[in-house]
């Protein structure tokens, strides 16, 4: 009986293993193909001019995405400026101070927020900021990106704070240090690498967001000068250029995509390296 059962069990085992391998292989293949294609295309079109020159009109040669790169830096900076303190405070609250019921409600809210499609967040920002102010603006886009980034920072902060051993917190308390001081001077420094990794993941996430920018930043043909005015950004320009029939623009869309992918790739690698270092 047992002997008979063994064969199918081995076969199922083998089959499941194969299925998993197939899935993993497919995922790696897709990443490699996509990265490879963007690299090959992007590398052939990217040059110094692309980074330091402003854009040119259709039908013309040359030009670049200087203003779009600046725009993306401004938007990511603005989003981080809002989301990092807010997300960190939320994460610290979740791991340290929230009563279990309040904390689980906040955690649930953060998870839902993380799952909301970014276009919905764009529409939300449009309704509450753009429309009352009667103007598309870098400011509204920064808020929209911050809303996307907050849950990422909050949850990673919470998780890394939880990894700080109880023995260190108790050591601080036993020295007659108040709870909140021990959080600031002992727990947060202990969790810092994890928190920084979370911030970088958040930056990677919002750097490439396009949909919310359509409703907020809008795009602009002028260099950035005012937070309350529309602003151009890399993903917006990639979208515009890639959809156009102009050959020069299409080439620049590839170069822009390459730049964005490299940004995300570098951030992911740094985060991996940091978390490996933390574990050892």
């Amino acid at each position, binding site marked *: 009986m047992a002997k008979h059962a063994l064969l199918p069990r081995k076969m199922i085992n083998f089959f499941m293993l194969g299925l998993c391998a197939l899935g993993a292989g497919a995922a790696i293949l897709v990443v490699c193909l996509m990265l490879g294609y963007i690299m090959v295309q992007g590398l052939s079109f990217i040059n110094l001019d692309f980074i330091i020159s402003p854009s040119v009109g259709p039908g013309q040669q040359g030009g670049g995405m200087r203003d779009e790169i600046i725009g993306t830096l401004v938007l990511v900076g603005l989003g981080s400026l809002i989301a990092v303190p807010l997300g960190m405070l939320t994460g610290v609250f979740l791991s340290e101070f929230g009563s279990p019921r309040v904390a689980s409600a906040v955690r649930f809210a953060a998870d839902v927020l993380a799952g909301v499609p970014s276009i919905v967040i764009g529409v939300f920002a449009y309704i509450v900021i753009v429309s009352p102010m009667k103007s598309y603006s870098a400011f509204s886009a920064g808020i929209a990106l911050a809303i996307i980034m907050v849950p990422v920072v909050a949850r990673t902060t919470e998780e890394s704070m939880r990894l700080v*051993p109880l*023995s*260190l917190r*108790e*050591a*601080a*308390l*036993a*020295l*007659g*240090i*108040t709870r909140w*001081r*021990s959080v600031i*001077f*002992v727990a947060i*420094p*202990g969790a*810092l690498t994890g928190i920084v990794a979370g911030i970088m993941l958040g930056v990677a996430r919002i750097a490439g967001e396009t949909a919310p920018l359509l409703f907020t930043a809008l795009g602009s043909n002028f260099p950035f000068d005012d937070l309350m005015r529309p602003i151009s950004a890399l993903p917006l320009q990639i979208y515009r250029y890639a959809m156009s029939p102009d050959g020069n623009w299409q080439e620049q869309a590839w170069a822009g995509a390459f730049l964005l992918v490299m940004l995300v790739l570098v951030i992911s690698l740094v985060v991996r390296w940091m978390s490996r270092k933390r574990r050892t």
Partner: protein
Amino acid sequence: MESFINTELSSRKSLNDSDYILQVEELNAFYGSFRAVKNVNMSIPARAVTAIIGPSGCGKSTLLRCFNRMHEVAHGARVEGRVMFDDNNIYATGTDPVRIRCHIGMVFQKPNPFPTMSVLDNVVAGRRLSSLWTKRSEMEELAEKCLRQAALWDEVKDKLKQSGASLSGGQQQRLCIARALAVQPEIILMDEPCSALDPIATLKIEDLMRTLTEEYTIVVVTHNMQQAGRVSDMTAFMLMSDDRAGELVEYDTTQRVFTNPKDKRTEDYITGRFG
């Protein structure tokens, strides 16, 4: 068996009421609804070493943590009864546990220096993190004084800037003792401070406990009965009762507990290991 008992120290004291620094009255400690420590009454003499012994799980750590209000840090933990410290109940309503812990410090079983701080910053952490501003030279002086008291200065004076986690286990434990001393408490509670250490480091810490009694009161939990015999003036023996709550079975001078215990269970426990 008597050879390891410090007779000179144990017999030196004839105590009266004013020599007691901590008076524990009807103390009960709970984790949620589970009572871990039951009806403990004991008076702890000042400037002496009091040892708490007993089998694993009988509530020694729990009792010790009740003495500086660290018990309530655990989730759902609570305390009933009184602990009188200098005639004030540390559990009186309105008493700030943070203040109590400044007077009654603690050293844990596993050395736990702050890994993000240097050796020097570790020593003065209690002072620096509870004041708005501290003078650098003052902190360096304090650190040197406490490291010398903890018999660690010579070993770390060239490594003050290194991370606290870079020291050996025994050095880390003495660093933790120095860190507790820097707060200038009156009492230091130690929960099996030597259990992670080798015999030589253990002896160093035992010597240290003896010298510290010149200024400090020490309460130490230990599994090692020779250690209790070597270092302590008073010994408390705890045992789990039928409802799994820890009880204080016997509390007396170390000499009497080890040579002439009143309770049969104490004798069994002591001779069971060493007879």
